[in-house]
Structures are given as C-alpha cells and as structure tokens.
C-alpha cells in the first residue's frame, strides 16, 4: 500500500472503486512505468484532485479490440475507474446516446474543453481517395481527426492500427491506411501505444503520467513510452533460458513444445519486438498469461515492419542491440528480419582458465623436500671434502 500524506483527503470511493483498490491500482501503474512505489501515492493525489479530465475517443479502421482490452482489465475494475475517473465524453462503442445525439455531445465537449481534453485514436486512418473508406456521421475519419487534433491537450494512439497502420495497412493496403501520426502529417506529437491489443496498463499508465506530471513520458523514436517499450520481449522472456541452452520446439505439439522450450524456430518474433508483455502479462490471471507463455510464438504485433508484415513462421536474425535501448530506424526486412540482442554473457570464453594449479600443501611438501635434498647434498659435499683429505693422508702414509 503506497504511503500517502493526504490519503485521508481522498474520497472513500471512486464510483464503484474502493479507496483501497484505487491506491493499489495507482501503485501498479507506478510500477508499470518504472517509477518508485511512493509515486503511486502521488498519482493517486493527482488523479483525485482532477475533475474528471475529458477524453474524446475516436475510432477509425478498427475492431474495437483496444477498447475491449481496456474493459477486460479486472483488477481493480478499471472500466469503472476510467468511467468515473475520466469523463469519457465521446466513444462510439461505449456511448449511451447514438447518432445525432452522440455527435452533438462530442461537439459540446470539444467546445467546452478546448485545449484540455485528451484525444485517443483507435484504428487506422485510410488516406486513399481522400479517406472515403472510413466515414462517421457522413464525414471521413481523416477530416474528423484533422479537425479535432489541434484542439486536444495530448494525442494518444492506442493499438498498432492507430500507431502505424496495423492490420488495415498490411499489404496490399487497399485503403491506404496509416497511423494517426502519419495521417496528421507529423505536425502533432502523438504517443503511440502499439499492440494488438496493447496492454491496458501501458495505456492507463501513460494517461496517468500525463495527468500527474503534466508532461509526456519519455518516448522513443517511434513515439512509444520507453517505460513500456524499452526492452525486447526476448530479453525478459521466461523461455529465454531454453534459447540460451539451445532447446527449441521444432513443431507445434512436439516434445519440445510440450515441455515449454523456446519458440524461436517456430517463428517467434520476441527477439525483434519491443514490449513488456513477459513482465506485466495480460488480464491479471497469473503466470504464463501472455502469448509465448501459452505456447504461441510472438508474432510481433506491436512492432512496425514485423507484426502483420513478416511471415508468421519466418525466423528472426541477430543484430547488435544499441546501448540506448531504442530500436534502430527500420531497415528493409529480408527473410526473418533483424534480431536485436546484446552479446550473451553466458558463453565460455575462447581460453577459459582450466586445469589445476598448486595447492598450499603441495608447495609446502615440495619445498620441504627440496630443502632436505639440497641440505643432504650440501652435507654430502662437505663430508666428501673431509674424506678427500683423509684418503689423501692415507695415500701419503702408504
């Protein structure tokens, strides 16, 4: 339980959420962002002090999977939290009103909160033929986005589709689908939370970060928060020891697959996908609740140029991992593409120290023996000197 000076000032309930559960959630969010646990309290205070920041949620070419993943976060009941915490003024799937009423509400909310609301984009935006392949209320998604974006405090692209095009953009891309940042022509800073679906904590943590610190979290060159997308899945994978030991599943349901060996040979894209799946898992149901954990090779959903692009069975290859942690700018994929790894530390060197050196006892005994031998030799030599003179004397007498 995070310590909180003003915890007494927090209300006992946030809608359906108890104060206790709320603080717990803030702690989890702080941990997900890599912040110290005490930050959980700060987040809680920040959130409690806010008057339900308004959120406008736009949907383009999408499957609502990103919304669903948010709703499936059950510990604590996050759907209640976000509904009570934020003022979700417009969301096509979740709005109670529909049709003109909904559009009316959106207009009002935007007008009332100009420059204060958070714009969330879900789904890709088709660009071909002036964007006519996705229309809402008779207007193209492209138009709506371009109109809304300048008025928002911040823009968050949730899911791979909104981040870089996702499924709709995969070849041959008939509608010319692109991500939000590209649709806006790169004029606005967009935070990308890629994934199919993304982990809800990555999204919530980002929103809470903005609310708490009033600034954007540290982003990589693809606009992804570094706290979530800093490391390769391969680096944190629970099956990594099998990779290091060379134990691979060769086919689905073979001996190695059943025993939980590395899925690299089945085309796992963990070695080239940046995400924190193995660390925070999905759905709060315990260990192994993520694709690789269940025996399904990662297909790189959150990585542009990997997910929905590389063949699922294609193998990855190795390229050195940069020290900053940000991935290199995309090179053309060939075959399996690039696999980013630090040189492993678990290999024997070319000339490892081997064999057995002298022990103290051995050296002691040996030096003792040498001493005795030298002493005996010296005494013998001295004796011989004496004998020499004796025999000379004898010879003289004779």
């Amino acid at each position, binding site marked *: 339980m995070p310590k909180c000076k003003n915890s007494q000032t927090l209300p006992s309930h946030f809608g359906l959420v108890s104060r206790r559960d709320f603080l717990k959630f803030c702690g989890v969010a702080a941990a997900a962002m890599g912040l110290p646990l005490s930050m959980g309290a700060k987040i809680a205070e920040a959130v409690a002090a806010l008057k339900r920041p308004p959120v406008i949620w736009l949907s383009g070419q999408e499957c609502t999977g990103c919304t669903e993943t948010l709703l499936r976060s059950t510990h604590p009941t996050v759907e209640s939290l976000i509904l009570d915490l934020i003022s979700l003024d417009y969301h096509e799937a979740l709005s109670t009103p529909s049709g003109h009423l909904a559009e009316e509400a959106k207009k009002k909310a935007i007008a009332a909160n100009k420059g204060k609301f958070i714009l969330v984009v879900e789904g890709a935006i088709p660009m071909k033929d002036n964007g006519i392949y996705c229309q809402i209320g008779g207007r193209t998604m492209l138009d709506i986005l371009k109109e809304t974006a300048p008025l928002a405090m911040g823009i968050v692209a949730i899911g791979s589709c909104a981040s870089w095009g996702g499924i709709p953009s995969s070849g041959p891309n008939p509608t010319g689908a692109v991500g939000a940042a590209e649709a806006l022509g790169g004029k606005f800073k967009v935070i990308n939370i890629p994934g199919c679906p993304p982990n809800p904590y990555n999204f919530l943590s980002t929103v809470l970060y903005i609310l708490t610190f009033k600034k954007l979290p540290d982003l990589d060159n693809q606009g992804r928060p570094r706290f979530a997308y800093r490391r390769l899945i391969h680096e944190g994978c629970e099956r990594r020891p099998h990779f290091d030991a060379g134990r691979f599943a060769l086919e689905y349901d073979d001996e190695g697959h059943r025993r939980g060996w590395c899925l690299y040979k089945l085309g796992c894209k963990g070695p080239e996908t940046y995400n924190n799946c193995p660390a925070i898992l999905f759905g709060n149901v315990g260990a192994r609740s993520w694709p690789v954990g269940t025996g399904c090779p990662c297909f790189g959903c959150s990585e542009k140029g990997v997910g929905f692009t590389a063949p699922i069975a294609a193998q990855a290859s190795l390229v050195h991992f940069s020290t900053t942690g940000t991935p290199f700018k995309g090179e053309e994929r060939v075959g399996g593409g690039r696999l980013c790894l630090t040189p492993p530390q678990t290999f024997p060197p070319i*000339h490892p*120290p*081997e064999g*057995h*050196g002298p*022990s103290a006892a051995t050296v002691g005994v040996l030096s003792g023996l040498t001493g005795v031998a030298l002493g005996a030799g010296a005494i013998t*030599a001295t004796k*011989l000197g004496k*004998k020499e003179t004796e*025999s000379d004397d004898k010879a003289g007498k004779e």
Partner: protein
Amino acid sequence: MVEESQPLGGKIVTKPFLVLAALAAVGVVLMLYRYLYGLGAVTNLSDGYPWGIWITYDVLVGTALGCGGYAMALLVYIFNRWEYHPLVRSAVLTSVFGYTLAGVAIFLDIGRYWNGYHLFLPWYVNFNSVLVEVALCIAAYVGILWLELAPTVLEGHQDNPKAQRARQRLERWLPVIVALGILLPTMHQSSLGTLMIIAGYKLSPLWQTPLLPLLFLISAITMGFAITVFESILSSLAFKRPFETPMIAKVGGVMVWLIGVYLVIRLADLLLRGAPVFSSGFLSSMFILENLLYVVPLVLLASPAYRANLRSLFVASSSLLLAGSLYRFNAFLVGYSAGPGWTYFPALPEILITLSIVALELMGYLYFVKRYPVLPKAEHV
C-alpha cells in the same frame, strides 16, 4: 671370469629401510584409491595436461636415471674399456629398478590398464605410433636388464649347483644380451624425445625440434654416466667403503666430452631455428637454468685435477642429473601448453605416489647390494 664383486652383507631391515617402507605403504594406499576412483581423484592431470609427473618423472627421468647400465655397457663392451667393468653391476642394478618401476608407473598412469596387453598384439599395434616403439622397447629392455642382472643373483647362490649351471649358460649368451641391452635403450631413449614431435606448436620452440631424439639420447647417456658416479660416491659414503675415485674420475672425463657435444648441438639447433631464447619469459628462465646446470659439470670437470676431487665429481654429477631431469621436465611439462588457459601442478597424492616408487627403488637397491655381489670388491678400487 674373475670375481670382482661381493655382497655387502649386514641387516636388511634398518631404520632408513623402515622409513622407505612407510613411504611406500602410503603410496600403495593411494594407488589403490586411484584404481577405485579414477585418475582425477589422486592427480591434478587434466585434458590440457594429460601427462604429468608420473610420465615425466617416473618414466622419462626414471629411465634416464636408469641409463647407468646402458652407458657403462657402452663404455665397457663397445669402446672396450674393461677397467670400468667393476662399475657395471651396480649400474645395471640401478637400471633394473629405474626401468622396472617406470614400467609399474606406466600401468598406474594408463587409464585402461586392463587393455595394456594390446601393445603386444600385432593386430592392435599401430606401427606409426612413436609410443609403440617406446613401450615395446622399454618392455623388452626391462627383460634384458633382469637377464643382465641374473648372473649376479645366481652368483649369490654359490652352493646351488643348478644356479651355477644356469649362470654359465647365461654367460654364453652374454654378447647377445649386452648388444640388445645397448640397442634397446638407444632406440627408446631417442624415441622418448620423438614423442613430443607430434605435439607441434604445443611445445615451446625452445624445446620443439626435429633433433629431439638425438638430444634425448645424448642427455640420457650423460645421465647414465652421472648416475654411476653419483651412486658410486653415495654408496661408498653410506656403506663406509673406500671410494672408487680414479675410476669415476675417468668417467667424469667421458661426461665432459658428451656434455660438450650435447651443448654444441643444442645451441646450434636453437640458433639455426632462431628460437626465442631470451624473450619467452618464464620459459626462458627455465631454459637458462637447464643449460646452466649442464655448464656446471663442464666447468667443474674441465681439468683432470678437478676430476680427481670427489666433491667436484659429486657436485658435477648431481648438477648433470638435475640438468637432464630439468630438460625432460621442460620438454614434457614446462614448455608444453595446450593453450593459454591451462595450468598444471602435481597434486600431493600424485607426488606421494612418485615418492613411494622412488622408495621402492631404494629399498630394492639396498636389499640387492647387501644380499648379492653387486658392488666391487674393496681391493679392486
């Protein structure tokens, strides 16, 4: 044949004998342990240093120290210097023990000893292997050495007519036995050097040369003479007998010549190959020490006046024995390296087993000189 030797007589079980027996007993227990738990249990041998002091000391140095019989036979029978004949028997005795126990040490050292007889089965033997030559030659020479010693033993049983007949028969075969007793050591002492040729780069260029067989042969012969001198002085001292000074002084003269030849070949070879004599760090120090030990006898025995001095004879022969031993240690252990990571230093049980073998050798020697006519009669000296 004129009787020129006599048994020393006296008690066999003396205090030194008991000390040696205790040492030997410790070794025997450790040997048992080695057979039960493998070589790794008692030795510091490893895959980088598969041959340790058992091969280097017990076999290489042991047989070289056992070259007394060979060197003296060469001098007496081939160069026809019969004045040295009284020294032959004691030299052969040291050889018998040196070689026999080297054979025992080999059976301690080889891992699959129960297959050891394969060395004598033609369908197993690989005649390209240097080790085959060494093993067969040493085995044959051990037999020859016992035959060479046999007349001495039979002579000890004067009142047994059978023994005397056998001795007479043996002496008829003496030229053959002696000729083999010279040929076999020539073959295997040189081949012991050839063993390391195949190690190639693993042996430092300070020792790795195609002349290894020649150098090993010459240094073995010098060690043979040195051990004869050394043993003569020590046995005279220990058993309070008169010294054989004039005779061993002459042996010293032969030694000087041989050391000279050896050093010239050794240095010429190094120069021709351009070996890094001074730039090899620790190996250079060992190399210099080894050759300084060769130079000591050369200086000490240079003039006939020095050679008559027992002390310089003793120091010179000790130095030469050390030099030859160090050469063998350097060529098989110190200068050998399987790679930069490997280290070897013998383990205590390994050393104790070697010591027990030496103790057995000395016990055998003591028994034989007291019981059988080995040492020259006093009036011969």
